[in-house]
């Protein structure tokens, strides 16, 4: 063994120079074995360690969470009474820019809703839907109450101002005929509300809620009206920016696979109300 190795890794020297560490098998110059010196373990009574701090600390008081509430919005009277004697239709392009809602001054489909994700679905089910799909750029159609909701195809580059005028003309012309917007066979195929509720509740309990539980989310069926579904997203889903994606890509598909005859699926959650849904706790000074 080289001498430099002994100098660097001389364990005995290291132990002998460390205070409080008993040495063992250490030899003095005469070759006698030195007995280990017992070292007292540190105690709280040792003056070198100081006295224990017995001050009692109070738990910090968390600010009380407050409910976030909304005041009802008052619409302008002019906006409410602007429907004309003729079939008046107003269009509202939604924030996603891919959907446009046409609000008609009379029922389009009373008590029910009809969802056509592609032209073939409307072929035998809805004469109005079939005519709407003939317009270039229309990808899906939802008939519900006094509204027609149109979704644009991904490849469509037509501006809504142009597409909506054409759509409005088709809706107006069809409603003037007075004919039903869906066929009788489509109506007959729609299951009763109770049956829809049971099947969708099973989906919620066994598929959706276990899936979103990882994000502390929960979905509740609020009600079924005709074949329209109203749901509330709670827990981590309430106020979550991704809740719209969860709804469209997850819940919609699950529900429609379980009951293909359901129409509109509406999220009636107030995503900004409740007990502070956006934040886990209020900052100091809010209480």
């Amino acid at each position, binding site marked *: 063994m080289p001498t430099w190795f002994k100098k660097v890794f001389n364990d005995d020297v290291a132990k002998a120079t460390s205070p409080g560490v008993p040495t063992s098998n250490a030899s003095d110059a005469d070759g006698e074995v030195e007995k280990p010196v017992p070292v007292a373990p540190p105690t709280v009574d040792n003056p070198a360690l100081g006295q224990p701090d017995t001050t009692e600390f109070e738990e910090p008081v968390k600010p*009380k969470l*407050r*409910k*976030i*509430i*909304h*005041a*009802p*919005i*008052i619409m302008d009277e002019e*906006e409410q009474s602007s429907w004309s004697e003729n079939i*008046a*239709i*107003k*269009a*509202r*392009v*939604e*924030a996603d820019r891919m959907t446009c809602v*046409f*609000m008609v001054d009379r029922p389009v489909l009373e008590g029910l809703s009809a969802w056509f994700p592609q032209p073939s679905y409307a072929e035998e089910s809805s004469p109005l839907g079939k005519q709407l799909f003939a317009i270039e750029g229309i990808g899906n159609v939802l008939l519900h109450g006094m509204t027609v909701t149109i979704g644009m195809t991904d490849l469509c580059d037509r501006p809504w*101002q142009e597409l*909506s*005028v054409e*759509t*409005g*003309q088709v809706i107006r012309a069809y409603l003037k005929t007075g004919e039903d917007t869906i066929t009788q066979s489509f109506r007959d195929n729609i299951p009763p509300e109770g049956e829809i509720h049971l099947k969708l509740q099973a989906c919620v309990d066994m598929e959706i809620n276990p899936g979103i539980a990882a994000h502390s989310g929960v979905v509740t069926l609020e009600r079924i009206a005709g074949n329209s579904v109203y749901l509330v997203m709670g827990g981590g889903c309430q*106020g979550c920016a991704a809740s719209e994606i969860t709804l469209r890509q997850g819940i919609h598909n699950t529900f429609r696979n379980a009951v293909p005859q359901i129409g509109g699926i509406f999220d009636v959650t107030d995503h*900004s*109300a409740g007990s*502070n849904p*956006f*934040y886990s706790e*209020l*900052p100091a*000074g*809010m*209480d």
Partner: protein
Amino acid sequence: MPKLDSFTLEIKTGAKAGPEIPSFAINGFPLEFDSTEGSTQPGETIVLTGSPNSYPHSLVLIGPQNGQPAWDIESITATYDCSLMEAYTIRMGTIILDDESNLNFWNEPPLPIFDV
């Protein structure tokens, strides 16, 4: 989501008075109003202005402090001045704000509606 540069709140108090100096919070961050005109006494109107210069998820009027009586708000007219768009006004109705609640008065710009 638009960037909210500033806003004006015109609050008419109903039967029960509100806090003398109301405050607000944007996205949970408490701020004071830039200016206050009028009062929150019953039947009176108070005009408040604020300059958050930020992107609001929530914009809340903070309710009365703990133990203070509830504030009876008869109406609110909120005007929002956002970057890159025209200012818009939203009118809100009656609401009671107690010491357990905050009022979220943020409203996204209304979507344009047109006749077809």
